[in-house]
């Protein structure tokens, strides 16, 4: 029977199928971090259970870690306790941990791909909703809660109903200065924050095939912001080239065998998706959010919308509340919105290519005196690579701060936070109320828009810089 990519990966991992029950699915790789795991380990201890497959489990410290003074003990005692708890749990249950100071430490969704652990056709889970990132390699990867973390630790499986499938077909090519981030923000505004609910999205089409692995990860990462638990892209030569030679990638004959297998991982021509969406990449332009959920976005060339223009009463009220929180007036051109802070980083846009895009725009320029800019690499490997290319110096010369790896200001569990009322342009994934700090106001943007905004002091596109220099 013809199948979609998601169905093929699901099918090949079913340990047990019984009518009227959810499938029992084998998990190839379980990634663990400090925030969603302590209660799961505790429950294992209470029940006298062990970790079934420590060899398929990898832990890192990312959400709480400071990005300054990382050689010193964490000042926040509650954060420090959470990190120390993870260290104790990993030692007790025999799980490899990339702790602060380790050269492989970083955001869980950056280190998996970088180590070559994220491979086509695998099932990958983590107690983190942005696990969808790994779908860029043709893996079926999704976020789980702490009860499910415990379930995977104990059994290396999960129970679940087979998800529905959605195809997002992106035709055409992205114009210059328009990135994967603009594409995914535009898609989320089009289908809404619940548009993908219950589906695994497969991104297809010329615009997707033309993307680098970094761009594909940005797209799959934000599938959850469209309500989908997972996003996937069929693996191709771009995927294989990225993986080749990475520490955990197969070598020699095993590599050839793997590639031959990976090439079969695509939706059959006659496979049927439960729903399909189409998007024209060539019609896109830099895209930013104006509201407090990722579906409240608009092209940068637009103005802040008028809530009265929303047909749906729920959307109208939601827009009114969002504009009040964001302190924005309907009709204000988005380019006139000034920001206090620019954040480049996160599992959405904290990879080397993202830093290169931002650095290219900042080379020979200074950020606006009124702006604070934080550049936080997604992993210590990304940090080292950026420093080897001299990107750190470009950021520092421009007046930005160059930090160590972690989730940082994406969710402000470490000291990197917005002050009440402060406004940011952020390459992260969520503009929820208070997400980046209590009372903070977030505009989600691409790395290019982030850099241009830092220079001008207001929301701006990369092209705006070229026009003025």
């Amino acid at each position: 029977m013809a199948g979609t990519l998601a169905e093929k990966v699901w099918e090949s991992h079913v340990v047990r199928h019984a009518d009227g029950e959810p499938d029992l699915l084998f998990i190839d790789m379980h990634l663990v971090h400090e925030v969603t795991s302590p209660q799961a380990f505790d429950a294992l201890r209470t029940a006298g259970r062990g970790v079934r497959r420590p060899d398929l489990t990898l832990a890192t410290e990312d959400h709480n870690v400071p990005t300054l003074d990382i050689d010193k003990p964490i000042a926040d005692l509650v954060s420090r306790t959470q990190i120390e708890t993870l260290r104790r749990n990993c030692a007790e249950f025999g799980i490899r941990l990339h702790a602060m100071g380790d050269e492989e430490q970083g955001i869980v969704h950056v280190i998996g791909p970088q180590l070559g652990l994220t491979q086509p056709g695998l099932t990958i889970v983590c107690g983190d909703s942005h696990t969808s990132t790994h779908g860029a390699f043709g893996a079926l990867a999704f976020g789980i809660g702490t009860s499910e973390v415990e379930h995977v630790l104990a059994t290396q499986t999960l129970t679940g109903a087979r998800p529905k499938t959605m195809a997002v077909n992106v035709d055409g090519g992205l114009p210059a200065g328009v990135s994967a981030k603009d594409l995914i923000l535009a898609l989320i505004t089009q289908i809404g924050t619940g548009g993908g609910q219950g589906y695994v999205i497969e991104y297809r089409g010329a615009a997707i095939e033309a993307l680098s692995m970094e761009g594909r990860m940005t797209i799959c990462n934000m599938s959850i912001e469209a309500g989908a638990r997972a996003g996937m892209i069929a693996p191709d030569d771009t995927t294989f080239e990225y993986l080749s030679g990475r520490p955990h990638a197969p070598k020699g004959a095993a590599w050839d065998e793997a590639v031959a297998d990976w090439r079969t991982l695509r939706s059959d021509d006659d496979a049927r998706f439960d729903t399909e969406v189409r998007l024209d990449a060539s019609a896109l332009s830099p895209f930013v959010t104006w509201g407090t959920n990722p579906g409240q976005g608009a092209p940068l060339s637009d103005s802040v919308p008028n809530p009265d223009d929303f047909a749906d009463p729920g959307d109208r009220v939601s827009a009114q509340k969002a504009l009040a929180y964001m302190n924005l007036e309907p009709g204000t051109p988005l380019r006139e919105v000034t920001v206090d802070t620019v954040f480049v980083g996160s599992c959405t846009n904290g990879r080397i290519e993202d830093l290169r895009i931002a650095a290219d725009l900042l080379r020979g320029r200074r950020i606006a005196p009124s702006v604070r800019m934080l550049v936080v690499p997604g992993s210590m490997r990304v940090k080292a690579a950026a420093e080897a290319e001299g990107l750190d110096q470009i950021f520092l010369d421009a007046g930005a701060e160059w930090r160590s790896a972690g989730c940082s200001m994406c969710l402000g569990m470490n000291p990197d936070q917005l002050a009440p009322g402060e406004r940011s342009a952020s390459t992260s994934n969520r503009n929820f109320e208070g997400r980046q700090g209590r009372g903070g106001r977030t505009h989600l943007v691409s790395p290019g828009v982030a850099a241009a905004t830092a220079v001008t002091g207001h929301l701006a596109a990369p092209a705006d810089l070229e026009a003025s220099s």
Partner: protein
Amino acid sequence: MNAFTVHRGIVAPLRRTNVDTDQIIPASYLKRVTRTGFEDGLFAAWRANEADFVLNKPHYAASSILVADNDFGTGSSREHAVWALMDYGFRVVIAPRFGDIFQNNALKTGLLVVEQPVAEVERLWQHAESHPDQPVDVDLVANEIRYGNATTSFGVDPYARWRLLEGLDDIALTERHRDLISEFENGRPERLPSIR
């Protein structure tokens, strides 16, 4: 997990869409390593900053059924959102649509989440606003919501419903299939990644 059969409680009408899990419990409360005591973090920002927020109104202080608008529980996978709701005293959340991971977490933890059409949610809001002291029954045995003269039926995934009614431990259920898991493991190609 405690079994869920029938619950009678006061409805708190939360007329908001897109209540993400960052609103249900902000990240600063996620640094704890314990499994209980999250009630202080529930809707922390709204409770602190909005005097007319529903849980700040005395009528709804003892509510145990939350009725919200579309897309409740979107965003972060934090199960702390479910724990905070339960620690505060909620046993049921009703909304037109839920975030996937939140819904999963709730049903695994014993918080009943019920999808109802927007029109029915509106009727429940009106009931709770005009008769805040009149309780609502949510009956998982009969798949019914009952209040005043109204009775509405609802559907929950049959397997999740069975687990809730029996209060079953998910891991113990899976452990019955240990042999199948071992068999599957033995068939996995050697080239697949492992940490060792």
